[in-house]
């Protein structure tokens, strides 16, 4: 993947460039040089902007029924066509996108908080606490995420927060492991000893001095977490077990599209919502890849 970028990159100049590598400027420069990642970031920003700003501008209510306009293929009037109730699919895709992206953002936010907290406590204190928390991580990895999410949503009901929490419950483990590893290696360094020497407490050391050192892996897992969260929520809605109609989500639109696409050939019903999921997940994966290379230049891939 990064072959294309390394070909375009200037040859590495001799001399002491390395100290700059860890600065914010260095990370940003290396990220921008990773072209698919930069394009991915632009795509994510564009889609987010579209689902927020466009709905009032296109002039269609996502839930307004108009039987005279049902099952229309895409046209200048209806960019993505209409469904069997004459609802404008473009309006529904934008509306659903807002919900799908909100769920993903909230779930990733939650899992970051939990993951960082668990990882920091485990890595900082070590010993029994570490051992117990890591067994918890093991259990989290061993539970089949989609199955438990379905079960929890069935039990609690398919609202915004239940879905967010169910998705978040299975995405904090990566963060916890990486943050823990960061704390384990950082806490042995001299500057921590020095800070303790001038009287800093546990909390101050853990938050002010060690946490910044784990920003890199946390940001990478958050980005990849967005992709996973979108896929999980969409799968849930596609199975008909997530948000209920008339509320649209990208997965929910695909659920409604099954019969029209397979039995009646209304391809537009399936193509557009799925393409949005694909685009966002692909973009998030590229951004995550680029960030990974940017934060860990020595470990960059072939």
């Amino acid at each position, binding site marked *: 993947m990064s072959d294309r970028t390394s070909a375009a990159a200037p040859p590495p100049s001799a001399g002491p460039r390395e100290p700059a590598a860890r600065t914010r400027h260095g990370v940003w420069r290396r990220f921008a040089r990773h072209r698919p990642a930069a394009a991915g970031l632009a795509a994510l920003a564009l889609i987010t902007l579209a689902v927020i700003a466009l709905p009032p501008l296109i002039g269609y209510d996502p839930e307004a029924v108009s039987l005279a306009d049902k099952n229309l293929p895409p046209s200048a009037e209806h960019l993505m066509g209409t469904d069997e109730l004459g609802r404008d699919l473009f309006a529904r895709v934008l509306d659903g996108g807002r919900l799908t992206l909100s769920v993903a953002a909230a779930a990733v936010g939650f899992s970051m908080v939990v993951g960082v907290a668990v990882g920091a406590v485990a890595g900082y204190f070590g010993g029994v606490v570490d051992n117990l928390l890591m*067994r918890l991580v093991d259990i989290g990895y061993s539970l089949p995420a989609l199955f438990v999410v379905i079960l929890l949503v069935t039990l609690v009901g398919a609202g915004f927060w239940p879905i967010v929490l169910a998705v978040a419950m299975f995405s904090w483990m990566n963060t916890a492991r990486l943050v823990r590893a960061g704390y384990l290696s950082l806490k042995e360094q001299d500057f921590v000893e020095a800070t303790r020497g001038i009287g800093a407490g546990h909390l101050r050391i853990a938050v002010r001095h060690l946490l910044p050192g784990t920003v890199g892996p946390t940001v990478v897992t958050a980005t990849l977490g967005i992709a996973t969260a979108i896929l999980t929520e969409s799968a849930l809605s596609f199975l008909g*077990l997530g948000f209920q109609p008339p509320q649209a989500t990208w997965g929910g639109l695909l659920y409604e599209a099954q019969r029209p696409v397979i039995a009646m050939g209304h391809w537009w019903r399936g193509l557009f919502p799925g393409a949005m999921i694909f685009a966002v997940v692909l973009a998030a994966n590229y951004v995550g890849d680029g960030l990974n290379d940017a934060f860990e230049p020595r470990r960059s891939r072939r």
Partner: protein
Amino acid sequence: MTSYRIRRCLQAVPLLLGISVIVFALLQMTPGGPMAAGEGAQSQASAEQIARLRGRYGLDDPLWMQYLKWLGGILTGDWGASFNTGRPVVEVITERLPTTLLLTGLSFGLSVLLALVVGVTAAVRHRTLFDYVSTGLAFAGLAMPSFWFGLMLLFVFSYSLDWLPSSGLADLRFRHEGFAAFLDRAEHLVLPVAVLSLVSVASLTRYVRSSMLDVLGQDYIRTARGNGLPERTVVLGHGLRNASIPVVTVAVLAIPELFLGAVITETIFGLPGMGRLFVESAELRDYPVLLGILLIASVLVVSANLLADILYGRLDPRISYE
């Protein structure tokens, strides 16, 4: 080595116990609790009958005792009865298992085969068009939602071209015999297997390629070439043999992934497997069946992790656990 294996197996025990506690906690959360009577039956029962039933099922025992009894039941094959049909959960699940196993098995075989061919070729032809295209496709495959892929395949091959059937395991309008029955079954499985394999082909291909690239850059490969061995022997005999060590572990871990992915595939194509059973049971709020499948899936994940670890140590003599 043997002691490591025993130790590693013992580590799985607390993990499984932790999972069983979580499943038991979920069971306590279900409406009606663990009482395997439907809600309709409860409404007709008098307070006295309910009390007697509670006594018989041990619902007045302390929670830890209920847990131990429940765990004992699980271990001896008593998984409760389905809310929906009243039949034993084990029976309901086992009759759906063959379809899922067939689907998972075929997809696993296809994934490994494709990943080996494409991954090795991409590594050997590093930085050629083939490498770029296959790597790009693999990356795209990882981002592709399988339900969308399935829907679009159905539109092309079932609706537009009318080459393949859109759902089920067999032609319901006509009973085929012998070879025709086999062909009919194959026709029904092409699309589901393609959809289920998508993600594992993509991720395995990436692993095979990067593992092969690592190995092909080693000194002993140059030595083998220098000694005049034919390229085929170098790549397959010396290269792939060594590159396959990490690949085997990842391949083993793909098995539970495929098993879980079957939920979506079976739903799209209306196949009567365990994944479809899970979704149906969720719609019907049939908690005993849901928890039973959850338990099977968790045990599968834990076993696959265990197997991957042990195989890794066995295949790579450089690793020592003493």
